[in-house]
Structures are given as structure tokens and as C-alpha cells.
């Protein structure tokens, strides 16, 4: 019997799901510390290549730019575990709240 009361309650209650694409991005509440698309603070990076060695899904490759060695992140390989952020000795890697990272070309899915 009590299941009928529950059915009645959820029939007229607030919806639990959100429509996608979101009409209003403010409706999505992401907690602090959410692991979305990563960002690199270039001035903090010392090119130690530890992030490349520790990455479990080989989503990081090291390239050389004007300032020396630096990582490039490939979002199509990344599983957002956060180990690079954990291993970075200078805290140059951080994760943003940007989670809609799917794209049709792989070129867009690089974080340089």
C-alpha cells in the first residue's frame, strides 16, 4: 500500500532529470574538485616529464616549445583520474569544470 503513496508523491514531485542540451547551464551543479578538462599553467611547468611517466592511459606527450619541455594532453585518451595533478611537483596542472569535451575531430581534443 505504501508504494502507492510513493507513486503519488513522485508523480507530482520535482523532476529528477535535466533535459540535454541544457537550457540553462546554471542548472548543472558541479562540486568543487570536479575533474573536467585540464589546464596547464605554463609558467609553473618545469618540464620534468613526471606527468608523462605516471599517466596510466598514455594521454600525455612531451613536446619542446620556446621555453623548453612541456606536456600536451589528449582528451580522447584521458580518463580524468587526476594522477598528473597529483604527481606534478610544481602544481602546474589543474582540472576545470568543463565536461562537454566530445568533438568530431581529434585536433580539438588536445590541451596545449
Amino acid at each position, binding site marked *: *500500500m*505504501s508504494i502507492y503513496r*510513493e507513486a503519488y508523491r513522485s508523480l507530482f514531485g520535482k523532476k*529528477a532529470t535535466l533535459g540535454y542540451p541544457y537550457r540553462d547551464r546554471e542548472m548543472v551543479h558541479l562540486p568543487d574538485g*570536479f*575533474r573536467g578538462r585540464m589546464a596547464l599553467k605554463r609558467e609553473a611547468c618545469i618540464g620534468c616529464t613526471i606527468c608523462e611517466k*605516471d599517466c596510466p592511459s598514455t594521454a600525455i606527450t612531451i613536446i619542446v616549445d620556446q621555453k623548453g619541455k612541456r606536456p600536451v594532453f589528449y582528451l580522447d585518451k584521458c*580518463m580524468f*583520474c587526476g*594522477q598528473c595533478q597529483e604527481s606534478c611537483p610544481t602544481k602546474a596542472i589543474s582540472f576545470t569544470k568543463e565536461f562537454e569535451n566530445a568533438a568530431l575531430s581529434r585536433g580539438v581534443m588536445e590541451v596545449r
Partner: protein
Amino acid sequence: MSSYERLFDIPIGPQHPALKEPVLLNLKVDGEHVVDVGVDISYNHRGMEKAAEYRTYVQNLYLIERVCGICNIAHTLSFGTAIEGLHGKPAPERAKVLRVLAEELERIQSHLLWLGIAAHEIGFDTLFMYVWLDREISLDIMEAFAGNRITSSYISIGGVKRDMTPEIAGKMLKGMDKLEGRMAYYRKAISEERTVLKRTQGVGLLGAADVASLSAVGPFARASGVAVDVRADDPYAAHELVPIKVVTGDGCDVFTRIMVRIDEVVESINAIRFCLGHLPSGPILQRLPRRVPAGDFLSRVEAPRGELTHFVRSDGSDKPYRYKIKTPTFSNIPSLAKMLKSTGRYVVNIADVPVILASIDPCFSCTARFERIG
């Protein structure tokens, strides 16, 4: 003697609408009654143990986490304990309590997931939807606490990755209060609901003697009155400090397994409240060297589904020499085969097979890690 001239074979799986994961149950049926069953679980060999030998310990943390998405904390906790054991340096006290907290939070979401699946298997999808909506409470807390809903990457070698903040603690306590009310409701609703009682009471019987002799583990064994729980028998992490009541039942059927799991969720809620109230101060992580001393270590953890065993052999390098995992589902397969056979007055109907299978909380993709050749 049988009223039918011969027994028929009905294969269920490896692909079947009632199954979520690949397993073959080769049923021998006499009319509607299952008289014998052959179980083949090796359809999803993922080669993870071998893959672990080619990765460093840091990379393995994320490989081991993906053995089972639902019990990811249990797997990483077991892995972390093994590596810390080889180093001979246990995690800091605060990290230990945080690990128990994460583990119990995971138990809540896993048991709620199972409750939904059990409801689905008996054809009661309304309950399935309600339970999974309440599971979102625990998943939202996990996301705020660890950064992700399922593969949370929370535990690292030597401690945990994130500290508890007062905001998250407050959110957690609020969520626990809400969940406790919901669990009281489900306990009442399920024990009164005729649909559930008719499909689960007296179904999938397996007595305590059989459960003990077939070495069953987890809530499945506890629902037959066998009080096996690694948290109480061989305390790891901070389980020596956190009081835990081993929930048992003596109905030995699917209904008791539902009730035991509901009560375990309540126990986990209490454990989380205790952890939040008794969180010691101090560091949450101690950095350990990348090279692990040579030796063997076996660690046991109570995953939501039962006892989970990890074995690691190190040769002193930064990669394991051998890694071996035994998941709880594997320990429960002999009991499953026994439960599915009609003997004497105990009959198993074909329609009861999905819910009996679901009652051990199977996770075959975690289990199949060997292949018989030839």
C-alpha cells in the same frame, strides 16, 4: 520419476535479455523445473592481471580501479594496502578513517544498485526506479567527496587524495539522514509488498551448512546465518576503531538477502556518522618510493559483494612481478550452481533463475580472469 521422457537443455546467456553481463547458465530442465546447471563464466577475459605486470605501481592504481566500476574503492583500497604492506609503512590514521568512510559510502551505492536490479529481475520496475533515484543521493556525495561518481580515484598508494572539508561533512550528514529515512521506508514497503514477497520468499534456498562448506562470502553468506565479514574477522584500514555490526539473517532465501542488504546500508550509514565524528587530525598521504621492496603480500577487503583478495609479488622494481585478484563473485559461483538445482521438495522454476542469479550480486566481468585452453 519425471513425467517427461527426457530432460531439455536451456542455455541462458552469454547474451540474454535477463543478463547484464556475459555468463552461460546451461540449464537442464524437467518441464518447468531446473534439475541441473552448468555455469561458464569465462566469456569476458580482460587480461588485467597480465596488463598489471607491464605498468608501474602508480599506473596500476587506475588499472586495478577499473577491475570493477561499482567496487572501485574496495579494489584500490586492497591494492593500496598491499603496496603499503610491502613497504612496511601503513597509511596515516586520518587517511585510514577516510578510507573506511569512502568504502562505506561505496557500499551504500552498491547495495542500492543491487536492490534496484533485484526489483528489476522480479519484474517490479517501479521499485527499481525509486531505489535508483535514492542512489543518486550517495552518488552526489561521492562526487563532491572524491571528484567522480563511480571511478572515483580517491585512494592512492600511501593514503588518500583528498581531505574532508566541513562543507562536505555537512552535506554527507544531511544525505545520510535522508538515506536513513528512505531505507526505513524500503524496509517497511518491501516486507509488506505482496509482489516482492511472492517472488522472493522461499526462492533460492541455501542452508548455512552448504554456504559454509561452499565458502560463500559477503551479504549472500550472511543472509544464511554465516557471519563472515572481513571488516570484523580481519580488520583493515580503520575498522578496528569503527564499530560495525555484522548483519545476519536466517531465512536463507532471496527475501532475506534483500533485508540483509538493506540493514547493511543502515549499518554503513552509522559507520559514516561515526567516522565523521571521530576523524583524527594529521596528514592524509605519505609519499612512498616508486620502487617497492621485493616480497609477497596478500590483502583482504570486504567489498560490497563480499571478501575481495588481492595478491602481489614484487621483485624490487617499480612494476609488480605478479598480480592476482580473486573477486567475491568467484567465491559465490559454487553456491549459485547448488542453489539452481531442484532437490527433493525444493524446486527451482525457470522464471526464478534471474532473481536467484541476481541474489548473489554477480559481477562476471570482474570475475573472468583466467582462460581454460584445450
